[in-house]
């Protein structure tokens, strides 16, 4: 399959430029990171405000009967941060879905696909360019959200922790290894679904269902049935890596010019 990086980069630059000028999409992309940073900060703030609250002891004991009762606030802060990572993973899945559904199926809606496919760009270059335009902002947003979360948690939790809690090894591994795998997954799913349905809203809705397993895991963790930690997240990352491989194989099979033209055009 023919591939020229310059053409893929032309698609990437064009999509990024289009994204920058799409204020509605930009705001909807930024809303989720805001919620994901502010919510755990609120919880940490609640634990720090009254660390000796007997209610906190009851919550801590619900999760772990062997907990050190002299510092339950710190236990609960660590617990909420470990559990919250699965919610954080919604972001690298969802943001690329927002961008890719728009960038891929949007070409059909705007009737720009035919002139695009009539240019020398190959389907592989097109997919790579569009995926980059989705993955790069997603990874940047996730990293920025992580930096804000670290700063916020460390400031808010300082009176109880007396040390920097974030970044820790689990979050760093998660943000820089697992999150990009999830972003790749979200983008791949959105691109494949867009290729089938060719309508950006429907593509977003269908691809958005991909976050449901993460919500299920989060429910399990907060309910105390699943114990989050580095090993747990490494297993999730491994599963997503396998899914990413499946997506690449499917994309190679599905993306030929005629299929794009007849499905999208």
């Amino acid at each position, binding site marked *: 399959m*023919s591939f020229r990086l310059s*053409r893929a980069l032309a698609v990437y*630059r*064009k999509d990024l430029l289009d994204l920058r*000028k799409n204020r509605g999409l930009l705001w909807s992309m930024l809303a989720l990171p805001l919620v994901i940073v502010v919510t755990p900060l609120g919880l940490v703030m609640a634990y720090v405000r009254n660390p000796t609250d007997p209610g906190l002891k009851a919550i801590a004991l619900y999760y772990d009967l062997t907990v050190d009762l002299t510092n339950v606030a710190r236990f609960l802060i660590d617990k909420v941060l470990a559990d919250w990572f699965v919610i954080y993973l919604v972001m690298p899945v969802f943001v690329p879905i927002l961008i890719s559904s728009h960038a891929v199926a949007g070409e059909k809606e705007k009737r720009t696909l035919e002139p695009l496919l009539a240019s020398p760009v190959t389907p592989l270059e097109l997919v790579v360019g569009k995926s980059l335009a989705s993955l790069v902002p997603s990874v940047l947003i996730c990293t920025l959200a992580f930096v804000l979360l670290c700063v916020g948690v460390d400031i808010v939790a300082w009176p109880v922790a007396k040390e920097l809690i974030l970044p820790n090894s689990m979050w760093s591994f998660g943000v820089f290894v697992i999150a990009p795998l999830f972003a790749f997954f979200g983008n791949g799913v959105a691109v494949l679904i867009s290729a089938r349905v060719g309508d950006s809203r429907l593509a977003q809705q269908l691809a958005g269902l991909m976050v449901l397993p993460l919500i299920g895991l989060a429910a399990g963790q907060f309910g105390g049935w699943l114990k989050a930690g580095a090993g747990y997240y490494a297993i999730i990352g491994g599963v997503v890596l396998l899914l990413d491989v499946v997506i690449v194989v499917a994309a190679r099979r599905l993306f030929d010019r005629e299929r794009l033209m007849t499905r999208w055009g």
Partner: protein
Amino acid sequence: MQGIRVEGLKKCFGARTAVEGLTFDVAPGEVFGLLGPNGAGKTTTVRMLTGLLTPTEGRATICGVELPLRSDDEGVKLRRQVGLLTEQPGLYDRLSARENLEFFMRLNEVDEPKAWKLATSLLERFDLAGREDEPVGGFSKGMRQKLAIVRALVHSPEVVFLDEPTSGLDPQSGRVVRDAIAELAREGRTMVLCSHNLHEVERLCSRVAVIKNRLRTVASLVELRKEGLALDLMVDGDAAAWVPALAKLPFTVGHHVEGSRLRVLLDKEEQSPDVIACVVSAGARVHSAQRAARPLEEAYLELVREDAEAA
């Protein structure tokens, strides 16, 4: 420069045949018309010839590249030499005219300063100079159409496919675009024009192919018009009054009435005196009788109608 050669091209979508039996050539420097009613297969034909769809049967050569394409590299080679104006302009509304053109220059990997020189001259010609940095979303339909034409030409393609190039343009802009098409052909480019505007086809094309899911005919405009002769009679009052008289002729003729003009379609030139005598003997005051070339519209409608009757 090489033109287009098409041999027995056919495209099916599942069990449905979109178009079949296409065989024609287009020489460099020629403006070739692709005519046919909606759904006749013109767009499918253009999509096959630009490498967007793979033919089910048959073959074609565009600028030396053979269809069906044998590899992605062949596809890239083909599309570098082909310019396409689609039915819808298909521009990125949030981007400016400059950004739209720049994007396609990069995809075509052209020498940008040289391409900008060409783009600037076309933008000036199409009255878009000074609007380069405005978002295309704010452009009128005509401006968008003109910008889409510039986009189809910025990489100096050898073969240009234009689908309804003057759609949405005011008469003045339409003329500018037609002049540009004629000039591109004079430069030696192969131009294929899909249009429902038969006046435009008459002004620009030397030959046409009439398609209705299969090739009906390929002919020069002169040949098409010659397939039937017409006699224009200017009479006193409403020409429709003399139509019943035509039934008395010993041969059958077609007719078309427009005010006091009676156009009689003949099979042979020798029928003219009989027609004039017939109308005069019926009482018509004939001011003038003039032999006329059959308009393209009539030839086209006849071809399409014949096809429908055959079906």
